[in-house]
């Protein structure tokens, strides 16, 4: 080997081999590397063990994988021939003929098989490549960097800068953001939309940063982007929902193959905690509104009480019964497509009925529960989502009621004489204006009751999620359903 070069410098005219001890092919060709070292000049870049290969003069420790990254190594062993400091040829894996062509007969490897494939380079293992890009490459990220002191806790720094909803966020480092961007083929600088209340353009990169902070996995990105696009539909009135004094916040319902692909929960405890996709997708939307849009509680968010769903409120529909028409299809999305429905949800109101055994009984019972949305004497204001549990749905199904029939029967059951509803009626000041006294009044706007199936197998309980009074102006504010691209 002796060529006068320092031990960590590649020969400008010679050979470089990138290898790792963990690769059986690299171990197999250890005698070849020794032979090439005697012929020289040679440098071996060892990814996992500077004592490997033995008997070679210049072994460069590449535990930090910087050299492997800069040489763009995808598999080991990789043999590279340099001339004048420039790479002129390379071959990957062990192929005697190729190695002899590149390195001469010192690479013959007598007694070895003629050919054996190599192993993946450590520099391209899942999650590693993004770290190396962040350390040594060009991330292409445009968001400004915020330096955190060496001895400071990055998670605490996120709190101190006001980036959190009150729970810890995952610090948005370059490698995490790059991994998140890997979950979508959309360009990082693409503008997804204008985020209220400050009307700020939001790029895919900013979505990825906030998705990292929310705890999303990269494969959630298409859903997060779809949720955001739906939330920015003018008909959803995100600005108004943010600044209302009412309880409501965005409720996210996911339909279609995307929900299954990312493991969303539509079963036991579907509206509760414990599923990463459910928890973090809804949270990502809230963090984008907070951080990019500037919508802060006590600032533009004027909720009197709010509701816990404003941390996150997201679940998938149970589409396991082929007889059931999923919510997204009911709202115009073709079967087999993934979609997001966004509703202005105020929180979960448990509905108990353990006695009804026929669809007719259950319709009357559910209607009584649904009258309570907002206030029992207020109608045509906030709408509602009815989350039908499997046991309640079974009563309907066994009685021959499909989605459309349930909807129709509930609408009929949700009509009441205006005389019972007007202000002052039943000794209660709250109520409908006197002009409704002689009318039969619907509880909800046409299409204002969204029915969705979810929940665990046991329990004659369903959930009623009240809406937002802003929905009373039907042409201006409604639930929206968008296909996820």
């Amino acid at each position, binding site marked *: 080997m002796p060529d006068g070069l320092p031990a960590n410098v590649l020969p400008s005219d010679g050979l470089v081999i990138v290898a790792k001890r963990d690769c059986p092919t690299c171990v197999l060709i250890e005698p070849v590397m020794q032979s090439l070292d005697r012929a020289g000049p040679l440098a071996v870049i060892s990814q996992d063990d500077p004592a490997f290969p033995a008997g070679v003069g210049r072994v460069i420790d590449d535990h930090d994988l910087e050299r492997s990254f800069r040489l763009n190594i995808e598999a080991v062993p990789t043999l590279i021939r340099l001339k004048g400091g420039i790479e002129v040829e390379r071959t990957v894996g062990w192929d005697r003929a190729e190695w002899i062509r590149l390195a001469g007969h010192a690479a013959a490897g007598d007694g070895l098989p003629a050919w054996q494939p190599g192993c993946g380079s450590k520099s391209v293992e899942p999650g590693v490549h993004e770290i190396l890009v962040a350390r040594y490459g060009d991330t292409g990220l445009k*968001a400004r960097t915020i330096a955190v002191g*060496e001895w*400071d806790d990055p998670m605490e720094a996120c709190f101190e800068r006001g980036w959190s909803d009150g729970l810890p966020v995952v*610090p*948005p*480092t370059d490698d995490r953001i790059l991994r998140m961007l890997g979950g979508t083929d959309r360009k990082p600088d693409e503008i997804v939309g204008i985020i209220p209340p400050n009307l700020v353009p939001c790029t895919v990169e*900013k979505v990825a*940063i906030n998705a990292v902070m929310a705890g999303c996995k990269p494969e959630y990105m298409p859903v997060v982007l779809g949720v955001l696009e739906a939330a920015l539909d003018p008909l959803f009135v995100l600005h108004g929902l943010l600044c209302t004094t009412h309880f409501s916040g965005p409720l996210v319902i996911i339909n279609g193959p995307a929900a299954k692909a990312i493991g969303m929960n539509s079963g036991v405890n579907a509206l509760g905690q414990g599923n990463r996709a459910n928890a973090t997708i809804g949270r990502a939307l809230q963090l984008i509104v907070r*951080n990019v849009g500037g919508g802060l509680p006590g600032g533009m968010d004027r909720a009197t009480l709010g509701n816990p769903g404003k941390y996150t409120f997201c679940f998938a529909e149970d589409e396991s019964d082929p007889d059931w028409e999923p919510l997204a299809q009911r709202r115009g999305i073709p079967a087999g497509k993934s979609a997001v429905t966004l509703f202005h949800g105020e929180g979960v109101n448990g509905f108990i009925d353990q006695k009804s055994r026929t669809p007719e009984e259950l319709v009357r019972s559910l209607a009584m529960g649904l009258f309570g949305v907002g206030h029992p004497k207020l109608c045509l204001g906030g709408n509602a989502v009815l989350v039908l549990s499997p046991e309640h749905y079974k009563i309907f199904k066994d009685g021959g009621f499909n989605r459309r029939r349930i909807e129709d029967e509930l609408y009929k059951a949700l009509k009441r004489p205006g005389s019972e509803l007007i202000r002052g009626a039943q000794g209660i000041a709250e109520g409908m204006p006197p002009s409704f006294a002689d009318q039969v009044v619907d509880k909800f706007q046409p299409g204002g009751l969204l029915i969705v199936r979810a929940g665990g197998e046991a329990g004659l309980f369903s959930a009623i999620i009240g809406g937002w009074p802003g929905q009373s102006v039907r042409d201006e504010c409604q639930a929206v359903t968008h296909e996820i691209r």
Partner: protein
Amino acid sequence: MNSATKLRDPTAETSPTRRARLAPPPSVAGKSVALMDIGKARGSEFIDRLEDHFKKAGVTTRRYRKPTNTKVAPTDLLQKIAAENQLAVIALSD
């Protein structure tokens, strides 16, 4: 500094990267000022002088002292100061 200490800004980037100090109050009238002796030599003399000035100006003051000057103030002391006052002076010395 390691790579974990460089974060990307998730916001609209409309405020400076350095966090601004809290603006001083326009007036101390009607406010209670905590005078915090951090326990270093002659710090109490500095606090005494400040207290005199505040008294002459008609401003309410309350005095506190760290148990030791070598460690940060305990949380319960900081919470007590925050609960009882609107402003605080942390006295330096030496």
